Protein backbone atom coordinates (compact mmCIF):
# COMPACT_ATOMS: atom_id res chain seq x y z
CA UNK A 1 0.00 0.00 0.00
CA UNK A 2 2.84 2.34 0.88
CA UNK A 3 6.47 1.96 -0.05
CA UNK A 4 9.10 4.37 1.18
CA UNK A 5 12.55 3.79 -0.23
CA UNK A 6 15.75 5.70 0.54
CA UNK A 7 13.76 8.71 1.60
CA UNK A 8 15.64 11.87 2.54
CA UNK A 9 13.85 14.96 3.79
CA UNK A 10 15.56 18.25 4.53
CA UNK A 11 14.68 21.80 5.52
CA UNK A 12 16.41 25.01 4.54
CA UNK A 13 19.47 25.57 2.39
CA UNK A 14 23.16 24.98 3.08
CA UNK A 15 24.83 25.89 5.34
CA UNK A 16 21.71 25.87 7.52
CA UNK A 17 20.23 22.80 5.92
CA UNK A 18 18.76 20.37 8.43
CA UNK A 19 18.49 16.75 7.35
CA UNK A 20 15.36 15.68 9.16
CA UNK A 21 15.12 12.20 7.61
CA UNK A 22 18.00 10.25 6.16
CA UNK A 23 17.78 7.15 4.03
CA UNK A 24 14.52 5.83 5.44
CA UNK A 25 13.00 2.70 3.87
CA UNK A 26 9.95 0.66 4.83
CA UNK A 27 6.86 -0.86 3.27
CA UNK A 28 3.33 -1.13 4.55
CA UNK A 29 1.10 -3.90 3.23
CA UNK A 30 -2.58 -3.24 2.39
CA UNK A 31 -4.71 -3.53 5.50
CA UNK A 32 -1.70 -3.37 7.77
CA UNK A 33 -1.21 -0.97 10.66
CA UNK A 34 2.35 0.31 10.82
CA UNK A 35 3.88 2.37 13.61
CA UNK A 36 6.63 4.96 13.52
CA UNK A 37 8.19 5.43 16.93
CA UNK A 38 10.83 7.78 18.23
CA UNK A 39 11.52 10.75 20.44
CA UNK A 40 10.86 14.34 19.46
CA UNK A 41 13.04 15.44 16.58
CA UNK A 42 13.61 11.89 15.36
CA UNK A 43 11.89 12.68 12.06
CA UNK A 44 8.87 10.42 12.45
CA UNK A 45 6.25 13.12 11.79
CA UNK A 46 8.39 14.50 8.97
CA UNK A 47 8.08 11.21 7.07
CA UNK A 48 4.31 11.38 7.40
CA UNK A 49 4.19 14.95 6.15
CA UNK A 50 6.41 14.13 3.20
CA UNK A 51 4.12 11.25 2.24
CA UNK A 52 1.08 13.53 2.55
CA UNK A 53 2.70 16.11 0.27
CA UNK A 54 2.93 18.81 2.93
CA UNK A 55 6.73 18.98 2.56
CA UNK A 56 8.25 19.13 -0.89
CA UNK A 57 11.97 19.06 -0.12
CA UNK A 58 12.53 15.32 -0.32
CA UNK A 59 14.32 12.78 -2.48
CA UNK A 60 14.00 9.04 -2.84
CA UNK A 61 10.89 7.04 -3.60
CA UNK A 62 7.44 7.22 -2.10
CA UNK A 63 4.90 4.93 -3.74
CA UNK A 64 1.25 4.68 -2.79
CA UNK A 65 -0.72 1.68 -4.05
CA UNK A 66 2.13 0.86 -6.43
CA UNK A 67 2.16 4.31 -8.00
CA UNK A 68 5.37 6.25 -7.31
CA UNK A 69 4.80 9.87 -6.43
CA UNK A 70 7.06 11.82 -8.69
CA UNK A 71 5.54 15.25 -8.87
CA UNK A 72 5.73 17.59 -5.92
CA UNK A 73 2.07 18.30 -6.42
CA UNK A 74 -0.42 15.59 -5.64
CA UNK A 75 -3.46 14.96 -7.81
CA UNK A 76 -7.07 14.48 -6.84
CA UNK A 77 -6.77 10.70 -6.94
CA UNK A 78 -4.02 10.87 -4.32
CA UNK A 79 -6.19 12.81 -1.88
CA UNK A 80 -8.93 10.24 -2.38
CA UNK A 81 -6.50 7.50 -1.39
CA UNK A 82 -4.48 9.09 1.40
CA UNK A 83 -5.74 11.21 4.29
CA UNK A 84 -4.21 12.38 7.54
CA UNK A 85 -5.27 12.98 11.15
CA UNK A 86 -3.21 15.53 13.03
CA UNK A 87 -1.81 15.53 16.53
CA UNK A 88 -3.47 18.52 18.09
CA UNK A 89 -7.24 18.61 17.61
CA UNK A 90 -7.20 22.18 18.92
CA UNK A 91 -5.04 23.28 15.99
CA UNK A 92 -6.41 21.10 13.22
CA UNK A 93 -9.92 22.55 13.13
CA UNK A 94 -10.57 26.04 11.80
CA UNK A 95 -11.78 28.05 14.81
CA UNK A 96 -14.51 29.80 12.79
CA UNK A 97 -15.84 26.78 10.92
CA UNK A 98 -18.63 24.67 12.39
CA UNK A 99 -18.57 20.89 12.04
CA UNK A 100 -21.10 21.31 9.25
CA UNK A 101 -18.83 23.68 7.31
CA UNK A 102 -15.77 21.47 7.80
CA UNK A 103 -17.46 18.32 6.56
CA UNK A 104 -19.54 19.81 3.76
CA UNK A 105 -16.54 21.69 2.36
CA UNK A 106 -14.49 18.51 2.45
CA UNK A 107 -17.20 16.48 0.76
CA UNK A 108 -17.66 19.10 -1.93
CA UNK A 109 -13.91 19.28 -2.56
CA UNK A 110 -13.83 15.51 -2.92
CA UNK A 111 -16.62 15.74 -5.47
CA UNK A 112 -19.21 13.88 -3.42
CA UNK A 113 -22.94 14.32 -3.81
CA UNK A 114 -25.80 13.83 -1.36
CA UNK A 115 -23.95 15.83 1.23
CA UNK A 116 -26.59 15.92 3.98
CA UNK A 117 -26.84 12.15 4.11
CA UNK A 118 -23.08 11.70 4.02
CA UNK A 119 -22.50 14.14 6.86
CA UNK A 120 -25.02 12.29 8.99
CA UNK A 121 -23.28 8.99 8.20
CA UNK A 122 -19.82 10.34 8.95
CA UNK A 123 -20.96 11.74 12.29
CA UNK A 124 -22.54 8.40 13.15
CA UNK A 125 -19.39 6.58 12.03
CA UNK A 126 -17.16 8.49 14.43
CA UNK A 127 -19.66 8.15 17.26
CA UNK A 128 -20.66 11.78 17.51
CA UNK A 129 -24.26 11.69 16.36
CA UNK A 130 -26.13 14.21 14.27
CA UNK A 131 -26.68 16.66 17.13
CA UNK A 132 -23.08 17.78 16.71
CA UNK A 133 -23.45 18.95 13.15
CA UNK A 134 -23.83 22.65 13.82
CA UNK A 135 -21.36 23.07 16.67
CA UNK A 136 -18.25 25.17 16.53
CA UNK A 137 -14.89 23.79 17.72
CA UNK A 138 -15.04 25.78 20.95
CA UNK A 139 -18.25 23.93 21.82
CA UNK A 140 -16.46 20.57 21.59
CA UNK A 141 -14.12 18.73 23.96
CA UNK A 142 -10.69 17.57 22.81
CA UNK A 143 -11.91 14.04 22.11
CA UNK A 144 -14.93 15.29 20.18
CA UNK A 145 -12.71 17.53 18.09
CA UNK A 146 -10.47 14.61 17.25
CA UNK A 147 -13.56 12.66 16.19
CA UNK A 148 -14.48 15.51 13.84
CA UNK A 149 -10.94 15.47 12.45
CA UNK A 150 -11.25 11.72 11.87
CA UNK A 151 -14.62 12.22 10.16
CA UNK A 152 -13.01 14.81 7.90
CA UNK A 153 -10.26 12.38 6.98
CA UNK A 154 -12.79 9.63 6.29
CA UNK A 155 -14.99 11.86 4.10
CA UNK A 156 -12.92 11.08 1.02
CA UNK A 157 -13.24 7.36 1.72
CA UNK A 158 -9.46 6.91 1.66
CA UNK A 159 -7.62 3.62 1.86
CA UNK A 160 -4.51 4.84 3.67
CA UNK A 161 -4.83 6.92 6.83
CA UNK A 162 -1.80 8.73 8.22
CA UNK A 163 -2.15 9.23 11.97
CA UNK A 164 0.21 11.79 13.50
CA UNK A 165 0.11 11.21 17.28
CA UNK A 166 -3.70 11.20 17.17
CA UNK A 167 -4.13 10.79 20.94
CA UNK A 168 -1.12 12.43 22.55
CA UNK A 169 -3.05 15.64 23.28
CA UNK A 170 -5.92 13.76 24.91
CA UNK A 171 -6.65 12.39 28.37
CA UNK A 172 -6.05 8.66 28.79
CA UNK A 173 -9.73 7.77 29.07
CA UNK A 174 -10.44 9.70 25.88
CA UNK A 175 -7.38 8.13 24.28
CA UNK A 176 -8.92 4.71 24.87
CA UNK A 177 -12.14 5.82 23.14
CA UNK A 178 -10.30 7.22 20.12
CA UNK A 179 -8.02 4.17 19.80
CA UNK A 180 -11.07 1.90 19.91
CA UNK A 181 -12.77 4.04 17.29
CA UNK A 182 -9.73 3.87 15.04
CA UNK A 183 -9.54 0.10 15.44
CA UNK A 184 -13.26 -0.23 14.59
CA UNK A 185 -12.96 1.99 11.55
CA UNK A 186 -10.00 0.01 10.27
CA UNK A 187 -11.92 -3.25 10.57
CA UNK A 188 -15.05 -1.75 9.02
CA UNK A 189 -13.51 0.05 6.05
CA UNK A 190 -10.43 -2.12 5.53
CA UNK A 191 -8.11 0.82 6.08
CA UNK A 192 -4.34 0.83 6.16
CA UNK A 193 -2.79 2.87 8.97
CA UNK A 194 0.57 4.51 9.38
CA UNK A 195 0.69 5.79 12.94
CA UNK A 196 3.30 8.05 14.44
CA UNK A 197 3.64 8.02 18.21
CA UNK A 198 6.13 8.51 20.98
CA UNK A 199 4.15 6.11 23.15
CA UNK A 200 5.29 2.52 22.69
CA UNK A 201 2.26 1.16 24.50
CA UNK A 202 -0.11 2.91 22.08
CA UNK A 203 1.80 1.62 19.08
CA UNK A 204 1.95 -1.83 20.66
CA UNK A 205 -1.82 -1.76 20.98
CA UNK A 206 -2.63 -0.38 17.53
CA UNK A 207 0.02 -1.66 15.15
CA UNK A 208 1.23 -4.90 13.61
CA UNK A 209 4.75 -3.74 12.84
CA UNK A 210 6.77 -0.68 13.70
CA UNK A 211 9.90 1.23 12.79
CA UNK A 212 12.00 2.80 15.51
CA UNK A 213 13.59 6.11 14.57
CA UNK A 214 16.49 8.00 16.05
CA UNK A 215 17.94 11.28 14.80
CA UNK A 216 16.38 11.02 11.35
CA UNK A 217 17.26 7.38 10.72
CA UNK A 218 15.28 4.20 11.05
CA UNK A 219 17.31 2.09 13.45
CA UNK A 220 15.08 -0.96 13.50
CA UNK A 221 11.93 -2.38 11.94
CA UNK A 222 10.27 -5.02 14.07
CA UNK A 223 6.92 -6.66 14.65
CA UNK A 224 4.83 -6.00 17.70
CA UNK A 225 5.39 -9.47 19.19
CA UNK A 226 9.10 -8.72 19.32
CA UNK A 227 8.34 -5.40 21.00
CA UNK A 228 6.16 -7.10 23.59
CA UNK A 229 8.78 -9.74 24.28
CA UNK A 230 11.35 -6.95 24.59
CA UNK A 231 13.52 -8.77 22.07
CA UNK A 232 14.81 -5.75 20.23
CA UNK A 233 17.96 -5.99 18.14
CA UNK A 234 19.25 -2.50 18.75
CA UNK A 235 20.50 -0.91 21.96
CA UNK A 236 18.53 2.24 21.33
CA UNK A 237 15.25 0.36 21.02
CA UNK A 238 15.93 -1.48 24.25
CA UNK A 239 16.63 1.79 26.02
CA UNK A 240 13.43 3.26 24.65
CA UNK A 241 11.42 0.27 25.85
CA UNK A 242 13.01 0.47 29.29
CA UNK A 243 12.32 4.19 29.59
CA UNK A 244 8.70 3.75 28.52
CA UNK A 245 8.09 1.30 31.33
CA UNK A 246 8.09 4.25 33.68
CA UNK A 247 10.24 5.75 36.31
CA UNK A 248 12.59 3.60 38.32
CA UNK A 249 14.17 5.46 41.20
CA UNK A 250 17.89 5.90 40.73
Amino acid at each position, binding site marked *: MLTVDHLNVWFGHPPDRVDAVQDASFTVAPGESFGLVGE*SGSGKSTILRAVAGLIDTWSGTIAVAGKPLTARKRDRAFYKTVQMVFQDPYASLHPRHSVDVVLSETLRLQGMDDIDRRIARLLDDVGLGRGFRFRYPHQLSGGQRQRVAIARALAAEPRLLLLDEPTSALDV*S*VQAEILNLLADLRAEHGLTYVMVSHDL*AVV*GHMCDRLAVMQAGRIVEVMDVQALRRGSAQQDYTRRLIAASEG*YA*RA
Partner: protein
Amino acid sequence: MTLLSVRSLRVTFPTRQGVFEAVRGVSFDLGRERLGVVGESGSGKSMTGRAILGLVRPPGLVTADRLELEGQPILNLPERRMRKIRGNRISMVMQDPKFSLNPVMTVGDQIVEAYRLHAGGAKAAARQKALEMLAAVQIRDPERVMGAYPHEVSGGMGQRIMIAMMLAPDPEILIADEPTSALDVSVRTEVLNIMDRLVRDRGMGLIFISHDLNLVAQFCDRVLIMYAGRIVETLAAPDLHQARHPYTQGLLNSLPRLDAPVDRLPVLQRQDAWRDGDTITQSLETEFPGGL
Protein backbone atom coordinates in the same frame (compact mmCIF):
# COMPACT_ATOMS: atom_id res chain seq x y z
CA MET B 1 4.96 17.20 60.54
CA THR B 2 2.60 19.27 58.41
CA LEU B 3 4.02 21.85 56.05
CA LEU B 4 0.83 22.78 54.31
CA SER B 5 -2.70 22.24 55.48
CA VAL B 6 -5.66 22.68 53.15
CA ARG B 7 -9.32 22.31 54.16
CA SER B 8 -12.31 22.70 51.85
CA LEU B 9 -10.49 24.66 49.20
CA ARG B 10 -12.84 26.05 46.55
CA VAL B 11 -12.13 27.94 43.36
CA THR B 12 -15.08 29.40 41.47
CA PHE B 13 -15.43 31.41 38.28
CA PRO B 14 -18.54 33.34 37.35
CA THR B 15 -19.66 32.63 33.78
CA ARG B 16 -22.72 33.45 31.72
CA GLN B 17 -24.15 30.00 32.34
CA GLY B 18 -23.78 30.46 36.10
CA VAL B 19 -20.95 29.91 38.57
CA PHE B 20 -18.36 27.39 37.45
CA GLU B 21 -16.69 25.49 40.30
CA ALA B 22 -13.20 24.47 39.22
CA VAL B 23 -12.23 23.15 42.64
CA ARG B 24 -14.97 21.96 44.98
CA GLY B 25 -13.81 21.42 48.52
CA VAL B 26 -10.33 19.92 48.41
CA SER B 27 -8.67 18.99 51.72
CA PHE B 28 -5.24 17.50 52.33
CA ASP B 29 -2.11 17.88 54.41
CA LEU B 30 1.37 17.93 52.99
CA GLY B 31 4.34 16.73 55.00
CA ARG B 32 7.94 16.33 53.94
CA GLU B 33 6.90 13.93 51.25
CA ARG B 34 6.23 13.60 47.57
CA LEU B 35 2.53 14.02 47.08
CA GLY B 36 1.11 13.25 43.66
CA VAL B 37 -2.06 14.93 42.42
CA VAL B 38 -3.54 13.06 39.47
CA GLY B 39 -6.53 13.79 37.31
CA GLU B 40 -7.67 14.44 33.77
CA SER B 41 -7.87 17.86 32.18
CA GLY B 42 -10.56 19.87 33.88
CA SER B 43 -10.31 17.92 37.13
CA GLY B 44 -9.05 21.00 38.95
CA LYS B 45 -5.58 19.64 39.71
CA SER B 46 -3.67 22.59 38.25
CA MET B 47 -6.15 25.07 39.68
CA THR B 48 -5.52 23.60 43.15
CA GLY B 49 -1.80 24.34 42.77
CA ARG B 50 -2.46 27.84 41.53
CA ALA B 51 -4.91 28.54 44.33
CA ILE B 52 -2.34 27.57 46.96
CA LEU B 53 0.13 29.99 45.42
CA GLY B 54 -2.47 32.76 45.13
CA LEU B 55 -2.19 32.73 41.33
CA VAL B 56 -5.91 32.53 40.52
CA ARG B 57 -6.76 35.69 38.63
CA PRO B 58 -9.98 37.62 39.13
CA PRO B 59 -12.85 37.08 38.51
CA GLY B 60 -11.82 33.68 39.90
CA LEU B 61 -12.57 33.40 43.61
CA VAL B 62 -10.65 31.25 46.12
CA THR B 63 -12.20 30.27 49.44
CA ALA B 64 -11.16 27.71 52.05
CA ASP B 65 -11.88 26.82 55.62
CA ARG B 66 -8.16 26.64 56.12
CA LEU B 67 -5.09 27.25 54.02
CA GLU B 68 -2.04 27.30 56.23
CA LEU B 69 1.68 27.18 55.61
CA GLU B 70 3.27 25.85 58.79
CA GLY B 71 0.37 27.09 60.85
CA GLN B 72 0.31 30.53 59.27
CA PRO B 73 -2.77 31.39 57.18
CA ILE B 74 -1.92 32.29 53.58
CA LEU B 75 -5.40 32.43 52.05
CA ASN B 76 -5.99 35.58 50.00
CA LEU B 77 -3.01 37.45 51.40
CA PRO B 78 -2.25 40.81 49.82
CA GLU B 79 -0.23 40.36 46.64
CA ARG B 80 2.89 41.91 48.16
CA ARG B 81 3.09 39.39 50.99
CA MET B 82 2.05 36.51 48.75
CA ARG B 83 4.92 37.31 46.42
CA LYS B 84 7.36 36.89 49.31
CA ILE B 85 5.92 33.49 50.13
CA ARG B 86 5.89 32.44 46.48
CA GLY B 87 9.54 33.20 46.06
CA ASN B 88 10.97 32.12 49.38
CA ARG B 89 8.84 29.37 50.77
CA ILE B 90 6.78 27.80 47.98
CA SER B 91 8.10 27.50 44.44
CA MET B 92 6.44 26.31 41.29
CA VAL B 93 7.75 24.52 38.19
CA MET B 94 5.49 24.73 35.15
CA GLN B 95 4.93 22.36 32.28
CA ASP B 96 6.79 24.08 29.50
CA PRO B 97 10.08 25.84 30.30
CA LYS B 98 9.76 27.78 27.04
CA PHE B 99 6.94 29.84 28.51
CA SER B 100 8.43 30.28 31.96
CA LEU B 101 11.86 31.62 31.02
CA ASN B 102 12.36 35.16 29.78
CA PRO B 103 13.42 34.80 26.13
CA VAL B 104 15.57 37.95 26.01
CA MET B 105 17.70 37.32 29.11
CA THR B 106 20.51 34.83 29.40
CA VAL B 107 19.86 31.87 31.63
CA GLY B 108 22.61 33.00 34.01
CA ASP B 109 21.19 36.50 34.42
CA GLN B 110 17.78 35.05 35.21
CA ILE B 111 19.06 32.72 37.89
CA VAL B 112 21.24 35.44 39.43
CA GLU B 113 18.30 37.80 39.46
CA ALA B 114 16.00 35.22 40.98
CA TYR B 115 18.55 34.49 43.67
CA ARG B 116 19.31 38.08 44.56
CA LEU B 117 15.63 38.93 44.70
CA HIS B 118 15.29 36.54 47.60
CA ALA B 119 18.69 36.44 49.24
CA GLY B 120 20.19 39.77 48.24
CA GLY B 121 23.98 39.93 48.34
CA ALA B 122 26.62 40.82 45.81
CA LYS B 123 26.45 39.90 42.16
CA ALA B 124 29.61 37.85 42.25
CA ALA B 125 28.37 35.75 45.15
CA ALA B 126 25.02 35.24 43.43
CA ARG B 127 26.80 34.16 40.30
CA GLN B 128 28.80 31.64 42.24
CA LYS B 129 25.59 30.35 43.77
CA ALA B 130 23.95 30.14 40.34
CA LEU B 131 26.80 28.01 39.06
CA GLU B 132 26.43 25.72 42.06
CA MET B 133 22.72 25.38 41.45
CA LEU B 134 23.21 24.51 37.80
CA ALA B 135 25.72 21.91 38.88
CA ALA B 136 23.20 20.62 41.40
CA VAL B 137 20.72 19.89 38.60
CA GLN B 138 23.49 18.02 36.81
CA ILE B 139 24.27 20.45 34.06
CA ARG B 140 27.72 19.43 33.04
CA ASP B 141 28.89 22.71 31.56
CA PRO B 142 27.33 25.40 33.79
CA GLU B 143 29.57 28.22 32.54
CA ARG B 144 28.34 27.77 28.98
CA VAL B 145 24.70 27.37 29.97
CA MET B 146 24.86 30.55 32.05
CA GLY B 147 25.61 32.53 28.90
CA ALA B 148 22.98 30.84 26.75
CA TYR B 149 19.56 32.22 25.90
CA PRO B 150 16.49 30.06 26.60
CA HIS B 151 15.94 29.22 22.91
CA GLU B 152 19.45 27.81 22.74
CA VAL B 153 18.83 25.08 25.30
CA SER B 154 16.85 21.87 24.85
CA GLY B 155 13.56 21.12 26.60
CA GLY B 156 15.11 18.88 29.22
CA MET B 157 17.87 21.39 29.90
CA GLY B 158 15.30 24.19 30.14
CA GLN B 159 13.30 22.26 32.68
CA ARG B 160 16.43 21.62 34.75
CA ILE B 161 17.21 25.33 34.64
CA MET B 162 13.70 26.08 35.84
CA ILE B 163 14.14 23.68 38.72
CA ALA B 164 17.49 25.25 39.59
CA MET B 165 15.84 28.67 39.65
CA MET B 166 12.96 27.54 41.76
CA LEU B 167 15.25 25.88 44.26
CA ALA B 168 17.55 28.89 44.59
CA PRO B 169 15.80 30.40 47.62
CA ASP B 170 15.60 27.01 49.39
CA PRO B 171 11.81 26.75 49.50
CA GLU B 172 10.01 24.45 51.88
CA ILE B 173 7.48 23.37 49.29
CA LEU B 174 7.86 22.78 45.58
CA ILE B 175 4.76 22.59 43.39
CA ALA B 176 5.53 20.94 40.05
CA ASP B 177 2.73 21.16 37.48
CA GLU B 178 3.30 18.52 34.79
CA PRO B 179 7.06 19.18 34.90
CA THR B 180 7.93 16.35 32.53
CA SER B 181 4.96 16.21 30.14
CA ALA B 182 6.76 18.16 27.45
CA LEU B 183 9.86 15.97 27.69
CA ASP B 184 10.92 12.75 25.99
CA VAL B 185 10.91 9.65 28.15
CA SER B 186 14.68 9.36 28.32
CA VAL B 187 15.09 12.95 29.48
CA ARG B 188 12.12 12.59 31.79
CA THR B 189 13.88 10.04 33.97
CA GLU B 190 16.86 12.33 34.45
CA VAL B 191 14.74 15.32 35.42
CA LEU B 192 12.74 13.21 37.86
CA ASN B 193 15.92 11.86 39.42
CA ILE B 194 17.16 15.38 40.01
CA MET B 195 13.89 16.46 41.59
CA ASP B 196 13.78 13.35 43.71
CA ARG B 197 17.28 13.87 45.07
CA LEU B 198 16.78 17.55 45.80
CA VAL B 199 13.54 16.89 47.61
CA ARG B 200 15.14 14.18 49.70
CA ASP B 201 18.36 16.06 50.47
CA ARG B 202 16.63 19.27 51.46
CA GLY B 203 13.64 17.72 53.18
CA MET B 204 11.16 19.62 51.04
CA GLY B 205 7.51 18.88 50.52
CA LEU B 206 6.69 18.23 46.87
CA ILE B 207 3.30 18.50 45.19
CA PHE B 208 3.60 16.72 41.88
CA ILE B 209 0.67 17.46 39.58
CA SER B 210 0.33 15.11 36.63
CA HIS B 211 -2.09 13.29 34.37
CA ASP B 212 0.16 10.22 34.28
CA LEU B 213 -1.07 7.75 36.90
CA ASN B 214 1.73 5.25 36.52
CA LEU B 215 4.45 7.83 36.64
CA VAL B 216 3.04 9.37 39.79
CA ALA B 217 2.68 5.97 41.41
CA GLN B 218 6.33 5.21 40.72
CA PHE B 219 7.67 8.60 41.70
CA CYS B 220 5.57 9.74 44.65
CA ASP B 221 4.85 8.54 48.17
CA ARG B 222 1.17 9.31 48.27
CA VAL B 223 -1.38 10.01 45.55
CA LEU B 224 -4.54 12.12 45.48
CA ILE B 225 -6.90 11.35 42.60
CA MET B 226 -9.05 14.25 41.51
CA TYR B 227 -12.27 14.16 39.53
CA ALA B 228 -14.49 17.14 38.71
CA GLY B 229 -12.85 19.42 41.25
CA ARG B 230 -12.83 16.95 44.13
CA ILE B 231 -10.48 14.38 45.58
CA VAL B 232 -12.17 11.04 45.00
CA GLU B 233 -9.46 8.82 46.43
CA THR B 234 -6.21 9.04 48.37
CA LEU B 235 -3.81 6.15 48.60
CA ALA B 236 -0.22 5.23 49.15
CA ALA B 237 1.57 5.18 45.83
CA PRO B 238 2.62 1.51 45.90
CA ASP B 239 -1.03 0.53 46.36
CA LEU B 240 -2.25 2.35 43.26
CA HIS B 241 -3.15 -0.87 41.52
CA GLN B 242 -5.35 -1.84 44.42
CA ALA B 243 -7.33 1.37 43.98
CA ARG B 244 -10.95 1.00 45.05
CA HIS B 245 -12.63 3.98 43.42
CA PRO B 246 -14.17 3.03 40.06
CA TYR B 247 -12.78 6.19 38.51
CA THR B 248 -9.20 5.34 39.47
CA GLN B 249 -9.72 1.77 38.31
CA GLY B 250 -11.24 2.99 35.06
CA LEU B 251 -8.30 5.29 34.37
CA LEU B 252 -5.81 2.50 35.00
CA ASN B 253 -7.69 0.08 32.79
CA SER B 254 -7.98 2.47 29.88
CA LEU B 255 -4.21 2.56 29.41
CA PRO B 256 -2.85 0.27 26.70
CA ARG B 257 -0.12 -1.99 28.06
CA LEU B 258 2.73 -3.70 26.29
CA ASP B 259 2.71 -6.65 28.67
CA ALA B 260 -1.03 -7.24 28.57
CA PRO B 261 -2.42 -6.84 25.06
CA VAL B 262 -6.18 -6.55 24.64
CA ASP B 263 -8.38 -6.27 21.56
CA ARG B 264 -10.40 -3.39 22.83
CA LEU B 265 -9.47 -0.96 25.55
CA PRO B 266 -12.00 -0.74 28.37
CA VAL B 267 -13.62 2.68 28.18
CA LEU B 268 -14.28 4.72 31.27
CA GLN B 269 -18.01 5.07 31.97
CA ARG B 270 -18.37 8.26 33.93
CA GLN B 271 -21.00 8.31 36.63
CA ASP B 272 -22.68 11.35 38.08
CA ALA B 273 -22.35 9.87 41.55
CA TRP B 274 -18.57 10.40 41.38
CA ARG B 275 -19.05 14.12 41.40
CA ASP B 276 -20.37 14.19 44.94
CA GLY B 277 -19.62 10.77 46.43
CA ASP B 278 -17.38 10.24 49.42
CA THR B 279 -13.63 10.28 49.21
CA ILE B 280 -12.14 6.84 49.56
CA THR B 281 -9.27 7.21 51.97
CA GLN B 282 -6.84 4.49 52.60
CA SER B 283 -5.70 4.37 56.21
CA LEU B 284 -2.12 5.40 55.96
CA GLU B 285 0.69 4.47 58.22
CA THR B 286 2.82 7.56 58.32
CA GLU B 287 5.68 6.29 56.36
CA PHE B 288 7.43 8.75 54.14
CA PRO B 289 10.41 7.06 52.53
CA GLY B 290 11.46 10.40 51.10
CA GLY B 291 12.78 11.66 54.40
CA LEU B 292 11.67 12.93 57.84
